[in-house]
């Protein structure tokens, strides 16, 4: 029950009006009747007096007159003198007779008159009230039956509609309530029809925007639209590229698709495209033969224009010439708009998806190019980033990290060494152990990686993983010396994968370790350098899984890379004049020799008085002597490696089984052939590179003449 409803107000007002009318009716009637009866009584007395006077007929009979008058129940007494003051219950009258006139004052019985009047008035009032109540009751029943009840029923029906139950209400009678009910039902029909239309359009949009296109669901929806619009079919042409239209023909019992070139369109279709506006026509001359065969007699079509771009056309047709109503036309236009917008959205989504894919590919290729960049610089780390990325990803998966985090770890691992771009080649490519100062420079590469990448705003990368991948569990790492769980998990994962791959990869100054051996060492370092949990998760992966080759081979030409590596190695490790290893490559040369020949013996050899030759005959001659010397040494002695240790000092290594005498003989042959003096000494400290370096330095210092002369 809604107290705000006018129905209740009306009911209450009617009830109140009836009660008030009854009460007012009673009192007003009582008042009027009472007064009237009093007046009537007085008038009656007057008439009585007149009658008595006429019948008496003489002044002389005034006592008789008095007696007769006083017999009246309404008269208390009669006098023949005028009253001092006339009250409302006194009548004074001058009577005329043939023998003169007579003044009479009649005093009325006030109590009797009032009592009598009041009694009758009460009865009259009650009668009036009863009649009034009867009439009111009749009116109330009348009002209730004719107005309030139908109003209440409509009110309840409207309440039901308001509560969401949109169903028709019963139609009764032809009166205004019947008409209201009819109107409400018409409104419900209209709302339902509109809902149906809106739902249909919404379904169109939904269907087309999810990219399902003109499938079976679309055909069913379009058939509903045909039913609502009372049309016999629809032609939908969507421009797939500049010249090709995908044409869909849908009728209530058939549908088929065609592909038509723009030039092949005939009839109403090219007409609409040409005019580029709505067309409504039943001119048969505008229809093609095929359209006439379809039975088309009337069309309402429009181009699909969205944002000033034509995407095709939609044509609804009828097999009779009866035109569509304006309302149906609006509906059809909305369908066409929804198709147009949906096609546009679909096109935009497709374009966007393509663009995103291209951008993703571009980003990946940029990232890979970064990796290739560092790998090309440091050939010994080729494939390292991808392997570390693979191991890191697998460890992250084993640890049960969410997909997004795994992806970030993978990307961070791929790019973790990108900062090495900023490390000088002399350090990065140094074919020997680094000095403390050099190592300090190497330590900045995680920060460099972080600084290079952070500006790229790549949300798919764990920057912390990159920045802290050289931090160690016990705080001995760099750049910040973080400890334990203060080190981000991504960095702890990459640290294990990075170390394992470094250990199991060749380096210029050492051979790779066996996987099991490397893993053993890593396990021994768990809780010291590495997170034990990460190590535990990594063990089965590092032991059993090999990273796929990936796309490295596809993107890099192996021969070119090898050539580049060779040339760069030569540039850094070899003496450009003679082609022998330079001083920096001593360790590498010794290692290489040992690798080739197992046990080796080493010799130093000086070209005596080379400086004098340079002064006397020029640098060119000196250079030629040096080149010829190395060439002859290679040919005659065939050493495992030759190192130009200083200007005229060389060291070379031969297999241990080569006799010293034989070597001496061959050197003498070279002396003779070149016409220079050579000093040969066997080296003693081949087991320790540092000591070997000292020995060579000492030899250089002992025979300064040899280098200076």
């Amino acid at each position, binding site marked *: 029950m809604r107290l705000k409803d006018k129905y209740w107000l009306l009911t209450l007002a009617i009830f109140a009006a009836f009660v008030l009318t009854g009460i007012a009716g009673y009192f007003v009637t009582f008042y009027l009747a009472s007064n009237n009866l009093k007046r009537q009584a007085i008038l009656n007395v007057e008439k009585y007096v007149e009658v008595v006077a006429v019948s008496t007929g003489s002044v002389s009979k005034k006592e008789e007159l008095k007696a007769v008058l006083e017999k009246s129940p309404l008269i208390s007494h009669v006098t023949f003198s005028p009253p001092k003051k006339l009250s409302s219950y006194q009548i004074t009258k001058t009577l005329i007779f*043939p023998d*003169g006139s007579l003044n009479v004052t009649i005093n009325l019985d006030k109590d009797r008159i009032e009592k009598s009047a009041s009694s009758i008035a009460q009865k009259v009032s009650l009668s009036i009230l009863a009649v009034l109540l009867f009439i009111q009751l009749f009116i109330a029943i009348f009002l209730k039956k004719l107005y309030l009840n139908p109003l209440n029923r409509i009110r309840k029906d409207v309440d039901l509609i308001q509560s969401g139950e949109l169903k028709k209400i019963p139609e009764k009678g032809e009166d205004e309530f019947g008409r209201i009910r009819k109107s409400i039902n018409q409104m419900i029909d209209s709302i339902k029809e509109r809902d149906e239309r809106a739902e249909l359009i919404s379904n169109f949009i939904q269907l087309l925007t999810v990219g399902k296109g003109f499938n079976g669901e679309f055909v069913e929806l379009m058939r509903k639209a045909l039913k609502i619009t009372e049309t016999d079919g629809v032609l939908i042409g969507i421009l797939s590229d500049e010249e090709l239209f995908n044409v869909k023909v849908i009728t209530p019992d058939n549908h088929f698709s065609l592909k038509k070139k723009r030039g092949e369109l005939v009839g109403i279709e090219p007409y609409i495209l040409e005019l580029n506006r709505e067309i409504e026509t039943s001119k048969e001359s505008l229809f093609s033969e095929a359209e006439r065969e379809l039975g088309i007699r009337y069309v309402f079509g429009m181009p699909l224009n969205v944002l000033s771009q034509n995407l095709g056309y939609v044509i609804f047709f009828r097999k009779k010439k009866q035109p569509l109503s304006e309302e149906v036309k609006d509906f059809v236009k909305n369908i066409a708009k929804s198709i147009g917008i949906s096609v546009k959205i679909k096109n935009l989504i497709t374009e966007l998806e393509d663009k995103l894919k291209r951008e993703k590919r571009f980003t990946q290729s940029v990232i890979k190019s970064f990796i290739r960049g560092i790998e090309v610089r440091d050939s010994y780390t080729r494939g390292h980033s991808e392997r570390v990325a693979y191991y890191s990803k697998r460890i992250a998966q084993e640890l049960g990290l969410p997909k997004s985090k795994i992806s970030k770890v993978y990307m961070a691992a791929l790019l973790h060494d990108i900062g090495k771009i900023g490390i000088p080649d002399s350090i990065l490519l140094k074919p020997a152990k680094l000095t403390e100062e050099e190592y300090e420079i190497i330590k900045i590469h995680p920060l460099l990686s972080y600084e290079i990448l952070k500006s790229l705003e790549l949300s798919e990368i764990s920057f912390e993983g990159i920045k802290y991948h050289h931090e160690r569990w016990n705080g001995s790492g760099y750049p910040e010396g973080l400890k334990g769980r203060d080190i981000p998990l991504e960095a702890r994962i990459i640290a294990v994968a990075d170390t394992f791959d470094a250990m199991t990869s060749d380096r210029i100054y050492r051979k790779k370790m066996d996987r099991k051996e490397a893993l053993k060492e890593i396990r021994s370092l768990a809780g010291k350098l590495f997170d034990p949990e990460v190590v535990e998760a990594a063990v089965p992966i590092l032991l059993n899984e090999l990273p796929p080759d990936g796309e490295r081979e596809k993107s890099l030409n192996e021969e070119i890379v090898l050539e580049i590596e060779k040339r760069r190695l030569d540039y850094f490790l070899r003496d450009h004049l003679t082609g022998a290893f330079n001083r920096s490559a001593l360790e590498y040369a010794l290692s290489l020799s040992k690798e080739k020949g197992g046990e080796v013996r080493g010799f130093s050899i000086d070209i005596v008085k080379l400086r004098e030759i340079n002064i006397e005959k020029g640098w060119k001659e000196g250079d030629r002597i040096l080149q010829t010397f190395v060439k002859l040494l290679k040919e005659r002695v065939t050493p495992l490696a030759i190192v130009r240790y200083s200007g005229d000092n060389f060291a070379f290594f031969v297999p241990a089984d080569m006799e010293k005498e034989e070597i001496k003989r061959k050197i003498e042959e070279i002396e003779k052939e070149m016409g220079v003096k050579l000093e040969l000494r066997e080296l003693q400290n081949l087991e320790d590179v540092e000591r070997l370096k000292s020995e060579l330095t000492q030899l250089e210092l002992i025979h300064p003449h040899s280098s200076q002369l």
Partner: protein
Amino acid sequence: MKKLLYFLLSLSIFTVFSCNQSKVDVITSEKFLLSPIRAAEFFSFYSKRGLNVCVDAVDSPKKLIRFLNFSTYNVVLTDKKTADFITSNLNSWVKLCKIARWRGDFYYLLVRNSLLKEQKLVIAFLKGWNFGVDCLKDPAVVRVLEERDGIFLPKNVKFFSCKGW
């Protein structure tokens, strides 16, 4: 039954209150004095003007005087002597005009003061009188009155239009 009576009484009260018709009650001691009024009535002079004229005739001036105690009468047609008696004893009556002469006696029209307050009513009534007087000049009218109403005009009676006395 009682209830029905109360209902009818209430209804009559309502009717009395709602109904207010103009009425002139005339009394005379000489029946022929009513002739002009009857003649005017014959031509529906009063009914056309919504005027209800009731006439009574008594057979002597004494009776007339006695009947004047009925307040219902507001017009009297009588001889000079009676008229003077009335006006001298009752100041509620006014001698308005001379209306006839017969056998050397003059007859007058008296009006109750209360009627004089209703000027239009008095004028209409007097116009009717004057119209009746004119009508009586037509012997056909006189004959009709005699045959229909039984009013016989005495010989040598002369009616006057009411123009004062």
